[in-house]
């Protein structure tokens, strides 16, 4: 990410959750509303500790339902606001997110994913991919979803998330996981105050004489009106899909096999790429940075080059559906992953690749 770095700010060793919280203060948030849940309680704790000494507002709500509705109210009043949670709490926020998407309010929501379903486990997972990128709440809407793969990106994507949310008046989500939230890495924080506030003439700040009253609503009772709001949303999503797709490629130039992985899984797959190449297997990696919008086009291009693709995820195989959509049947698309808080190792992934290659050889013999 091309975040403007504070040249004088030193690299610090920080936990992912704390790096994210610090970045939120540096992004000049007007408010954070949240509720504790493992594995991301450090975000609320950090902000409760730091914000009174610096600037902004932090409020511990009675539930995630209340948090997301406070976000709705504050965002509707023109404030830069965020919340964070993990799976069970994010599920409670889905009603509010649908309303926020419909009312077209910018805000940032962070999901530090833990293993599910249900109360699940507090260990890291990517099991909330479908919920994050396919809607989650009711109705036709999308969140803009960013997937960090390092503690540095946990900080940078706060800025990027707000920039995208405010550019499109759309809720943005950082979809990360318990490992990225808990692990410590070197991070250089974005420069404080380097994210200018947008103008919000639509916000409910008090009706002045020179304008009509501003209404923040998601209710459009006439079907013609509701359809036209939907068409407007869809037009916005097409623009986001055209202009905001972000991904990273590692050693794809000569790759015969393409791994597709986001977040923590992409860190694991980087190692698999190196292990494979030591054995003469030309593996490459495409890491989607935006999960919505998704890099369908680039994956389709790469399908003309590689023998097969494999989606590697910490879930039962969710993003693999998007990889399949992208390649349009040009090459086989495989999946490997672990679930419920378990993490695949680089060797596990390589072993999967080798067994696919062995099977192919058997067929060719």
């Amino acid at each position, binding site marked *: 990410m091309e975040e403007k770095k504070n040249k004088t700010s030193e690299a610090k060793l920080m936990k992912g959750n704390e790096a994210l919280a610090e970045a939120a203060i540096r992004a000049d948030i*007007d*408010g954070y*509303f949240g509720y504790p849940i493992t594995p991301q309680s450090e975000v609320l704790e950090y902000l409760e500790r730091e914000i009174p000494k610096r600037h902004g*507002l932090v*409020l511990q*709500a*009675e*539930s995630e*339902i*209340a948090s997301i*509705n*406070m*976000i*709705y*109210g*504050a*965002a*509707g*009043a*023109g*404030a830069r*606001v965020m919340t964070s949670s993990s799976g069970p709490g994010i599920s409670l926020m889905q*009603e*509010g997110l649908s*309303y926020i998407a419909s*009312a077209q309010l910018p805000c940032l929501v962070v999901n530090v994913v833990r293993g599910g379903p249900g109360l699940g486990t507090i260990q890291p997972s990517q099991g909330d991919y479908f919920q994050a990128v396919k809607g989650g709440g009711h109705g036709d809407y999308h969140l803009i979803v960013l997937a960090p793969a390092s503690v540095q990106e946990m900080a940078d994507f706060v800025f990027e998330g707000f920039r995208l949310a405010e550019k499109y008046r759309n809720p943005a989500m950082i979809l990360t996981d318990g490992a990225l939230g808990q692990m410590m890495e070197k991070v250089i924080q974005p420069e404080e105050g380097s994210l200018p506030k947008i103008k919000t003439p639509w916000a*409910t*700040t*008090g*009706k*002045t*004489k020179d304008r009509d*009253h*501003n*209404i*923040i*609503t*998601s*209710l459009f009772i006439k079907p013609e009106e509701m359809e036209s709001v939907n068409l407007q949303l869809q037009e916005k999503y097409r623009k986001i899909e055209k202009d905001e797709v972000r991904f990273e490629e590692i050693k794809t130039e000569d790759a015969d096999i393409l791994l597709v992985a986001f977040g923590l899984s992409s860190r694991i797959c980087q190692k698999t790429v190196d292990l494979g190449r030591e054995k003469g297997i030309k593996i490459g990696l495409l890491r989607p940075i935006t999960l919505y919008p998704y890099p369908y086009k680039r994956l389709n291009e790469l399908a003309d080059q590689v023998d097969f693709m494999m989606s590697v995820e910490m879930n039962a195989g969710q993003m693999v559906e998007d990889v399949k959509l992208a390649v349009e049947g040009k090459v086989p698309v495989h999946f490997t992953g672990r679930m419920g808080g378990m993490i695949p190792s680089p060797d596990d992934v390589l072993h999967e690749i080798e067994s696919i290659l062995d099977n192919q050889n058997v067929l060719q013999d």
Partner: protein
Amino acid sequence: MSIERPSTLDFPPDAEGMEMVYCRPDTLTDTPFHYCPGCGHSVVHRVLMEVVEELGLQEKTIGVAPVGCSVFAYHYMNIDMQEAAHGRASAVATGIKRVLPDRYVFSYQGDGDLAAIGTAETIHTVNRGENILMVFINNGIYGMTGGQMAPTSLPGQVTTTSPYGRDVKMVGHPIRIADLLIQLPGAYYVTRQAVHNPNAVRKLKKAFEKSFQYQKEGKGTCFVEVVSNCPSGWRMTPVESIKYLEDTMFPAYPLGDLKVPEKV
């Protein structure tokens, strides 16, 4: 105070020399109320907006509409407003007030919204002493969805979902939420009013005026319950509904102040 009127609402020309004493406030739009004949909502809307206008707070007041019959309150109230999800109005109002602390913020909710699905938000908003006005319309029924049992429906009350009358053994007694809220230190002013006659309307207006004054002083949550009617949901004429209010609703929900600021 002098209020300038649009020409369509002016006195007829032959009224020259007469003094304007009562008119539609600028804080109401020209949109006609959609409420059923006899419904209390439009009176409460009007009284609330009269107070906003008379206190000169149109530019500084932000309202939150609920889900229910008054979901379109923002069509009538000529101030900045937000429409909240069912039950969440006080959380939305909290978000607004926290980022715009110098504005006057109110939520407007019915009984299903405030005392059933939004109970947690209601109690915790008041417990935080959120410096807002919460308006609570209690008519003991779900009006918009067609007359189902509300948390405040009375024992034995016949509704579409309690066709044999509210069975308290099955679904419990009506919840007197204002009585619960006065236990919380965050509640600064809690009162139960009505709009069934001109005297009641005047009292309600006073309660709103006080609430805005307390909000200005940063005192905490002001909670104004209005025991109102629902002729359509109650399957009554407006006149019958007034009698039902007096005979049946007020004994269950006695009018008056439940919590007033301590005298210093």
